[in-house]
């Protein structure tokens, strides 16, 4: 069978098994919504705050479904010897990892859609003003975060250590990148750090696409920074790959 067909089969297989863990699937999709409900309540449902929160939590959802999920997943598959088994079969690595990645991307798309829909239906935000820009930032974002998650898994020694490694990257990044609140008055050093990292650029792009509709032309810098992370992430993920 062709690589493309095998990739699709792997993706379908992963999806089927994903839904076999219904409670995990439920919390996977509910977590960003729980954040949205809680923080919106804390801030008293003001539109100004929701205009920060909806793109912010959408960006966080991209990161958890790809970066976090793949760092955990690949570490687990390696520790269990499943990667080693796959390597001994004629399954092309592109098809296998493509299937895993597509699975993560599906979760990212579902979560971003859920947050946007809830933002509109429950909190009365406008529908996204630029769907194309939303799709474009989602696409580049999942490639960057997905590959960085795989790259990080190479540094994680075992599955027990995975939460510590992942949180050490994930938590600081969501706090400085404007996920829950506006970071327009961040101290200089933290602001520079946030601009150097990928999450802020995803959230900025999302805010432009969902809230302001200021046009892609104003956010080419964010897109370029994100694309650079995507290229670097793919290079790291491939270069340092460990099967066992």
């Amino acid at each position: 069978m062709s690589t493309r067909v095998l990739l699709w089969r792997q993706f379908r297989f992963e999806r089927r098994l994903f839904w076999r863990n219904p409670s995990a699937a439920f919390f996977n999709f509910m977590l960003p919504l729980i954040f949205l409900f809680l923080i919106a309540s804390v801030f008293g449902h003001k539109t100004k705050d929701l205009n920060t929160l909806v793109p912010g939590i959408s960006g966080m959802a991209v990161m958890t479904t790809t970066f976090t999920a793949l760092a955990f997943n690949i570490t687990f598959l390696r520790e269990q010897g499943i990667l080693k088994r796959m390597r001994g079969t004629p399954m092309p690595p592109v098809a296998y990892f493509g299937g895993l990645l597509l699975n993560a991307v599906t979760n990212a798309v579902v979560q971003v859609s859920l947050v946007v829909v809830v933002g509109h239906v429950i909190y009365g935000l406008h529908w996204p003003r630029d769907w194309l820009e939303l799709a474009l930032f989602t696409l580049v974002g999942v490639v960057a975060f997905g590959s960085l998650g795989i790259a990080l898994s190479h540094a994680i020694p075992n599955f027990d250590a995975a939460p510590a490694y992942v949180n050490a990257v994930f938590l600081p990044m969501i706090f400085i990148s404007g996920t829950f609140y506006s970071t327009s008055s961040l101290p200089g050093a933290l602001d520079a750090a946030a601009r150097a990292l990928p999450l802020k650029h995803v959230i900025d792009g999302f805010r432009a696409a969902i809230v302001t509709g200021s046009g892609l032309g104003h956010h080419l810098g964010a897109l370029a920074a994100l694309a650079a992370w995507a290229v670097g992430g793919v290079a790291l993920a491939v270069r340092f790959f460990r099967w066992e």
Partner: protein
Amino acid sequence: MLEPAITVHGLRKSYDGVEAVKGISFEVARGEVFGLLGPNGAGKTTTVEILEGYRQRTAGEIAVLGIDPETRDLELRRHVGIVLQSTGFYTRATVRESVEHMAVAYPNPRDPAETIELVGLRGKEDQRVGRLSGGQQRRLDLALALVGDPSVIFLDEPTTGFDPAARRTAWGVVRALKDLGKTVLLTTHYLDEAQSLADRVAIIKDGLIVAQGPPSELSPGRARYRVAYDENGRRVELETDEPTELLHRLTGEALARGERLQNLSVSRPTLEDVYLELTAEAAEQ
């Protein structure tokens, strides 16, 4: 004549300057069951993992089905089945889903249902893999390696940790593979396993092959015939290459004294004796 399924010539492998495999050579003919026998840490798994394409050798020539496994050739992987010492599974998939999923990666797979039956998992098709017992998971391991209908199969300690019944089943599968004309390279530290399954055995110790041949013909170096009897309540054991002569002398002397040789026994060296002797010798050097 058909080229051998596996050829290994002067294979060496070092890890950080420590030589785990120190120049070994053997060939496995097509349709043959070949056993690599040796204690833990002898270099068996290193050798097999080089042949499987997982590790790169330091020196030597190797070929599996005429192809160097280090090239990671896709065509080779289509014709090789691998059972590793331990591998995990997608525990939420069922047995049938696991086998069917693996089958699609191969150009001419076996029928998944038939493969499940071959390894003795019939009736477990719809069970989640995570709920199988350890022995059943090992059988699934075998099914996943066989579903591609490989012509060469590597089994790295396939029955370690099995209870006796599961071992018998696994042995039955290996014999079934041989009947199907498959080439099997298995590693084991169980002597009886090598003795009852392998057409030929190589005993490996400290990275070197110390003896090689059919189990029945592995020439005993010092492990000779053992003659034993009781004398004055004490067990006397003698070793000899010429049991006929020794027995003639012993029985002649006993008859002349008007005595009997109590509990006389004559035993041929088993593979175990050869194994223990050879591995002990290698350790002394």
